[in-house]
C-alpha cells in the first residue's frame, strides 16, 4: 500500500543523493534516462497470509509524465500516476480518476517522485536518511524515514542495483515485507504511443 508508493519513490530515488559521492554518481546515471521500462515480480509476505503472495506485471516510467503500473497476474489492475491525477483501472477495465486537488497526499507523492526523475533530490533527502555502499556499477542503499508519521508504518527501504535499480525491499513497521524484482529493464528516449495515451486525461468522469 503506502509502502509500495514509497518504494516507487525510492526506486527512482535510487538516484537521490546523500552526502556520499556514490549516491551523487548514481543520481547522475539516472538523469540520462527519460523513459524506463521494466517487468517486475512482486513478492509479499504478510502475517495475515498463509504463504507469500506473488504477482507479476510491467511498468513504464517517464521522467516527464509519470508512471504506468500494470499488474498482470494473478489479477489485471492498472494504475497511471501523474502530477495532476491518478487513474485506477480495475479488473473490468473501468478507469477511475482522482484529481490531485481532491486527494491531499497524491500530488505530494507524484511530485517527490518526479522531482527524483528531474534530478531534484532534495525532497527525498528531506524524508529519508540515505546511506549507500558499493560502486556505481553495483550498489546497495538503505533508506530510513525521518518523519515520525512515515516511520509509523514504514521501517526501512532497501535498494540494490547497478546501472538501474534491480531490487527493492520494503519492510513495514508491522513486519510485512514486499520485495520487487526488476527484470528486462530498458531505457528509451520516448514513450510508445499507447503508453502516451494513458497519460492523457480520460474522457468521462466516474
Amino acid at each position, binding site marked *: *500500500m*503506502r509502502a*509500495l*508508493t514509497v518504494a*516507487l519513490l525510492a526506486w527512482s530515488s535510487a538516484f537521490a543523493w546523500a552526502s556520499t559521492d556514490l549516491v551523487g554518481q548514481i543520481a547522475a546515471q539516472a538523469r540520462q534516462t527519460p523513459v524506463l521500462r521494466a517487468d517486475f515480480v*512482486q513478492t*509479499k509476505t*504478510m*502475517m*495475515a*497470509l*498463509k*504463504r507469500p*503472495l506473488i*504477482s507479476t506485471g510491467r511498468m513504464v516510467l517517464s521522467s516527464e509524465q509519470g508512471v504506468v*503500473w500494470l*499488474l498482470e497476474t*494473478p*489479477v489485471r*489492475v492498472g*494504475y497511471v*500516476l501523474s502530477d495532476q491525477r*491518478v487513474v485506477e483501472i*480495475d*479488473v473490468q477495465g473501468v478507469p477511475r480518476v*482522482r*484529481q*490531485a*486537488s*481532491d*486527494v*491531499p*497526499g*497524491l*500530488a*505530494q*507523492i507524484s*511530485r517527490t517522485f518526479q522531482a527524483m526523475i528531474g534530478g531534484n533530490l532534495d*525532497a527525498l533527502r*528531506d524524508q529519508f536518511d540515505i546511506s549507500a555502499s558499493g560502486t556505481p556499477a553495483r550498489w546497495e542503499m538503505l533508506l530510513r524515514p525521518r*518523519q515520525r*508519521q512515515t516511520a*509509523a508504518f514504514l521501517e526501512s527501504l532497501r535498494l540494490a542495483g547497478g546501472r538501474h535499480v534491480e531490487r527493492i525491499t520494503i519492510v513495514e513497521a*508491522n513486519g510485512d515485507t514486499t520485495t520487487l524484482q526488476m527484470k528486462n529493464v530498458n531505457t528509451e528516449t520516448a514513450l510508445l504511443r499507447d503508453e502516451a495515451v494513458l497519460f492523457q486525461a480520460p474522457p468521462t*468522469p466516474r
Partner: protein
Amino acid sequence: MTVRPTPLSLIVRALVWLLLASAAATAVFIPWSQGRLEPQTDLLALLPPTERDPVAELAVERLASQSSGRALFLVGAGSGEAAASAAADIARALRGHGVWASVHDTVDEFDPRRLLDFYANQRFALMTTQDRRALEDGSASLAQRLQAKLHTPFSWSPRLTLDQDPFGLADAWLADLPQGAGRLQVRDGRLVAEDASRHWVLVQGQLAASPWTTDTQEQAAASLSDVRRALQATHPDAALLHTGPVFYAEASRRTAEQEASQLGAVAMAGTLLMIYGLFRSLRPVALSMLCMGFGILVAVAVTWQVQGQIHLITLVFGASLIGESVDYAVQYFAAHLGAGPRWTPEGGLRMVGSGLLVALSTSLLAYGALWMAPLPALSQIGLFAVAGLSAACLSVFLLLPACVRRPAHHDPARMIVVAERGLQRWQQILHRWRFAIIGLCLAVALPGWLRLEGNDDLRQLASMPTGLVAQDQQIQQLTGMGNSGQFLLVQAPSAQEVLALEEALAPRLVQLQQQGALVAHQRVSAFVPSRAAQQRNRDAWAQHVLAPGTALERVLDDAGVQPVVADHLRHGWRRGADHPLEVDDWLQQPWAAPLKPLWIGATPNGHASVVLPIGLKDKAALVAAVDDLPGVQLVDKPASAGRLLTEARQGATLWLAAATAILLALLTLRYRPARAIALLTPALLGMGLTLGVFGWLGEPVTLPVLMALILVLGVGVNYPIFLWEGSGSLGTTLLGVLVSSATTLLSFGLLVFSSMPALHQFGLTLLVGSTVTIALTPLGVQGRPSKGTA
C-alpha cells in the same frame, strides 16, 4: 446702558444646561475611557435579520463568525522554492505579533491514522451505496475485491489492514471522503497554486480577538506592514496578496474616521466663519460652538445608550449635522442683532421661540421618519439627529439667554439694507414669474423623473476599498476559496432525520455537479452516515458476507489468507453493534474542525445542518433540485438583503407621501391652510427638481435618497417658517436664515465627497434639494406683514 443683574431664572436655566452637559459628557467619557466606545465595523450589523426563518439567520451568523477572524495571505514568486521560503518568512514575521492567535504556512501532513482510528471500529457500517447494492444483488465478487486489495501496489487514501477490511469496502468509503482544498494542492506540506507567471503559497492567520475592535484592526494592519517590509528585504520580487474581514473593517474604519474628521473640520470652520462674518463678534462664535458641541455630545450619548453601538456611517453623518444644529442658535443671535438696544434675553426668546419650536418639530418629524427606517444603519442616523438637534435647540432655551444679555453693538444696518433689498428684488422676480418658475421646474423635472431607476445594492452602505477588493478577487481565482453567501439549510425534527435528509439530497447534488451547475459540496453526512444508513450497511455485511452460506472461509482460503481472519471479522461486526457513529463524536475530532460550523445542532424547531455548495454556477438549478424536499431551503443572504432594501425603498416612497401630509397637517395647526401650503411649496419644488436632476444625471434612486428627500422636506420647510415667524426686522431674520442655510448647505454638500455611496447620495439629494428650496423660499412668504423695522 445699564444692565440689570441676571435674573435667577436665567442662571438656573444655565445651570440646568451645565448639568445636562456634564451628564452627557460622563455618559460618553466612561465607555470611551474603557475602550468600549468604538465604531461598529461589522457590516452585518448594518442589516436587520433578513431571513424569515430565525434558524437561517442563526446559520448565517455561525458561518460568518467562523470566518470573520480568518485572514489569508498569498505570496507569489518565480519558483516554488522561493515562494515556500517567502511564506515561511511571512509566517515568522506574523507570529511575532500577538494579534494573531495562530499562523499556518504548512498544513499538517495529513495523518491518515487519525481517520482510521476514528472509523476502524465502525468499519462494518461504512460502505458506498454502489458497493452495498452490488452486495445485495449479488453482482459483487468478494474474491476479486480481495485480490485487488492484496495486489494493489499503492494507495493514496487511508486503508485499513487486510485483517480489518479484506474486501476493501470501508476503504472505498474512506477514499470517497471529500478532502479537497479547492484549487490548492498540498506540496511539501504547503498549500500551493500556480498561475501563468508565479508560484503561490498560502499562509492562513487566525486572529486572537474579535476583528471588529479598533485595537485588533490597527495591530493587524501594523503586522501587515511589518510583513511587507520583511518580504521586501528578503524576497524583493515576491508579490503579496491579502484578504480578510479584519482588513476590510480596518480600511472602512480608517476611511470613515478620516472623513468624519475632515468633513467635521471643514464644516465647523466654515460654519464658524460665516457666523463671525455675520455677527462680527466672537461671542456668537463661541456660544455656537458650545451649542454644537452639546448637541453632538448628547447625540453620541443617547445613541450609545439606546443602541449600544455606533456605526461608521453615523460617525460620518454626525460630522455633517454640525451645520444644521447651529441653525437655532443663529436665529437667536439674528434676533439679538436686530433688536439693537431694546434687547432682553427673555424678549429674545419670545421673539424666536415659537419659530424655533416649529422648525424643530418639522426637523424631528423628518428625522424621526428616518429613525423608523428598517435598516439599523439609517435608523441610527435618525436617532442621532433627533437627539442632536433637540439638544442644540434646548441649548438656545437654556444656555443662551444667560450668556447673551447685553444688546448687540454691531450695527448691521448696511448688511440688512442690502439683504432686504436683495430679498425684495428676488421676491418680486419670483412672484412675477411664479407660475413660469413652477412650470419650468416641472418641465425640467418630469423628463428626469421618467429616467429614474432604483438600485438596491447592499454595497451602498459601506465604502469598499478598491485595492482590497481587487486582491480578494485574485485570491478567489487562485485558490477557489471565497464566500458566496449561499448555502442549503437542512431542517428536521431530529438529528438522525437531518442526516437522512442530507443523504437524500446528496444524489441530486452529485447530478448537478455532473451537469456543471456546481463544482462540489460539503455535508456532515458524508463523514457521519445516518444510523439508518449504517444499519443498512451492517445488514449487508451480515447477510451477504458473514452469513454461513456465503462461503467466506473458502474465499479467504483460496486467496491464501489465514482462516482466523474470518473469526476476527465476525467478532468485529458484533462489537460494532454497541456504539454506532454519532455526530457528537465526529465533532470532537480535530481534523473535523473546518467543517464543524456546518452542524447547527438543536434549534427551537428541531435540528438543523448546513450543506455548503462550492463553486455554485447555476442558482436556479439548485433551487429547482431541492424544491420538493421539505426541510431543505436555499439561504441567500445577499439576495435577501437586496430584497429587503427594495421593500424598504418602496416603503420609503409611501413614507414620503405620508410625511408630506403630516407636515401639512402640522402646519395647519398654526397657520391657515393656504399659508401652510405656501410654506411647503419651496420644499416640494425642491424635492421634485432633485428627482429630476437625479434622472438627468443617471444617479439611481436608492433608499438613502428617499430618506434624504424626507429631510429636504422637513428641513427645507424651516426657512420659510423662520422668515414668516421672524419678529423684529425682516432683515436680520433674513440674514440669519441666509447664514443658517449656508451652513446647512455646506455641511450636507460636504457629504457628497464621502466614499460611502449611501452618504454620497444622501449629500447630493440634500444639496440639490436644499439649494432649490432655499432659492425658492421667498415664494412661501409672500404677503408677510412687516413687523417693524430695524
